């Protein structure tokens, strides 16, 4: 017998190049608003700590450091890792433990500190998430994996790069209104479309950022939710999917098969369809990834995702607002924190707590989070429901 589970609170650090902080301070920053909301350490049964890679800082047993930094050193904790999908994998793990009755109240705390190494070194570490025997020796960086998808998509659907730049412009439009964003500035279409190439056909503005940051959410079992909030956000549906390790082995490069599997499972569990979703936080590690997400999540037919951005249907007043917090592109992408940050954003939108009305989505009953690890080897889709 499983129990319903709700997200009852969240916290978020400033994202950016945080040379002023280590994982310790970032964790404290993300947990502080949760603490201030009355969810003190004594009310938390256990923690899932979410970070993707210890190479960036060199810190081993990082989850112990994270727990200790916020006074949860005596409570059970564990680390979950699924590359860039680590945040939602951690929420998934905590959900299972709370739904099953093992714990009533769990904190999920995601963090990554990536800027202790140079961009070239960070790119090196992330390229090792490809197959070390067959892909790594050819220098297939993280952007390169998505560039392989982009060049195929552009050829199959005759997609001009302009469409990808429209997505980058949107990301920065909303990131500019998010005080927690790493790069909170507007970018013109010309700037985005003519930026320096990173992995052709992707340029600088097609790529997400190498970010330091942390985010936290608290999951509570239904019988105890009222002790914490009268504005719970229920986990309505949750799906996970996986894909082949090597990108060459995927039957299609214009879609992420694991994302489609995850979405199908999440919609089924929620009893909902894509048209029911009021907002989405999608994994735009690259502009092409957002475009493909529109299609994998069923918001558009294959090859037709471009219409959503061209018609501004993914803006905050559109049919299906996507990443109105700036996304990974402008808000930033601290790997282990990203999926938690997405969930925090859905909670904030549902509670009408967006910092500026110009990025507040009108009425969110159902919000979807789509979080992809590496080039699609792990994908989690979570559908949240407003509980008031």
């Amino acid at each position: 017998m499983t129990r319903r589970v709700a997200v009852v609170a969240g916290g978020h650090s400033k994202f950016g190049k945080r040379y002023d902080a280590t994982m310790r301070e970032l964790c404290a920053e993300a947990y502080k608003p949760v603490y201030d909301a009355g969810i003190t350490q004594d009310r938390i049964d256990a923690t899932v700590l979410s970070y993707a890679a210890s190479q960036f800082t060199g810190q081993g047993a990082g989850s112990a450091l994270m727990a200790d930094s916020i006074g949860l050193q005596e409570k059970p904790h564990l680390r979950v890792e699924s590359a860039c999908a680590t945040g939602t994998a951690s929420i998934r793990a905590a959900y299972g433990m709370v739904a099953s009755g093992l714990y009533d109240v769990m904190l999920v705390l995601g963090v990554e500190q990536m800027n202790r190494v140079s961009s070239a070194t960070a790119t090196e570490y992330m390229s090792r998430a490809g197959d070390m025997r067959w892909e790594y020796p050819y220098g297939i960086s993280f952007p390169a994996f998505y560039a392989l998808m982009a060049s195929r998509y552009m050829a199959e659907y005759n997609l001009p790069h302009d469409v990808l730049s429209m997505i980058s412009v949107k990301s920065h439009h909303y990131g500019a209104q998010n005080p927690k964003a790493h790069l909170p500035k507007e970018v013109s279409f010309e700037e985005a479309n003519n930026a320096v190439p990173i992995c052709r056909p992707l340029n600088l503005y097609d790529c997400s950022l190498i970010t330091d940051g942390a985010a936290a959410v608290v999951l509570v079992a239904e019988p105890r939710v009222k002790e914490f909030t009268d504005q719970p956000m229920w986990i309505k549906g949750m799906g996970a999917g996986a894909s082949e390790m090597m990108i060459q082995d995927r039957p299609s490069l214009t879609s992420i098969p694991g994302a489609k599997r995850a979405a199908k499972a999440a919609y089924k569990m929620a009893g909902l369809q894509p048209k029911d979703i009021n907002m989405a936080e999608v994994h735009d590690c690259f502009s092409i990834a957002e475009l493909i997400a529109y299609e994998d999540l069923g918001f558009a037919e294959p090859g037709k995702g471009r219409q959503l951005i061209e018609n501004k249907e993914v803006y905050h007043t559109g049919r299906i607002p996507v990443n109105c917090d700036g996304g990974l592109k402008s808000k930033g992408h601290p790997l282990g924190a990203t999926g938690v940050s997405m969930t925090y954003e859905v909670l904030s939108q549902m509670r009408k707590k967006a910092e500026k009305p110009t990025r507040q989505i009108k009425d969110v009953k159902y919000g979807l989070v789509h979080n992809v690890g590496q080039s699609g080897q792990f994908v989690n889709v979570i559908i949240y429901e407003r509980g008031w």
Partner: protein
Amino acid sequence: MSGEKEIYLGYTTDKAVTPFFKQFLEALEKQQLMKSTCKKCKSEYLPPRQYCQKCLTECELTEFTERDAKLVSFTVVEFAPESLASRQPYVVAIGEFPSGRRLTAHITNLMDMPKVGMKLKLSFERVSDKQVTYKWQV
């Protein structure tokens, strides 16, 4: 191990060279590309796997002789991981042989931007004393 000749695939020097993989690399030095075939269910793998993904039986290496392929996808890497910085820019390409088998490697003789669907031919190169690779040519 000391005394043994070091040999690596491609443009890096990952130390995880097992006896099975070394056999593959030694064939590659002789310009032979090896696939692997499951001794039990006959599933074929390119690049080769030591153990069959389906029935976990050991595979044996056999020569893969197709050379002509079509470009499935590509990227021109302008900002490389640290380990390949000295080679940038370079072109990474997924090519597909008529049998449907695919291989990921660099295209090393391009003068213009590659085009999806263009013809590729598999070739071989000794990169350094310790490195050997397959590569695509247009």
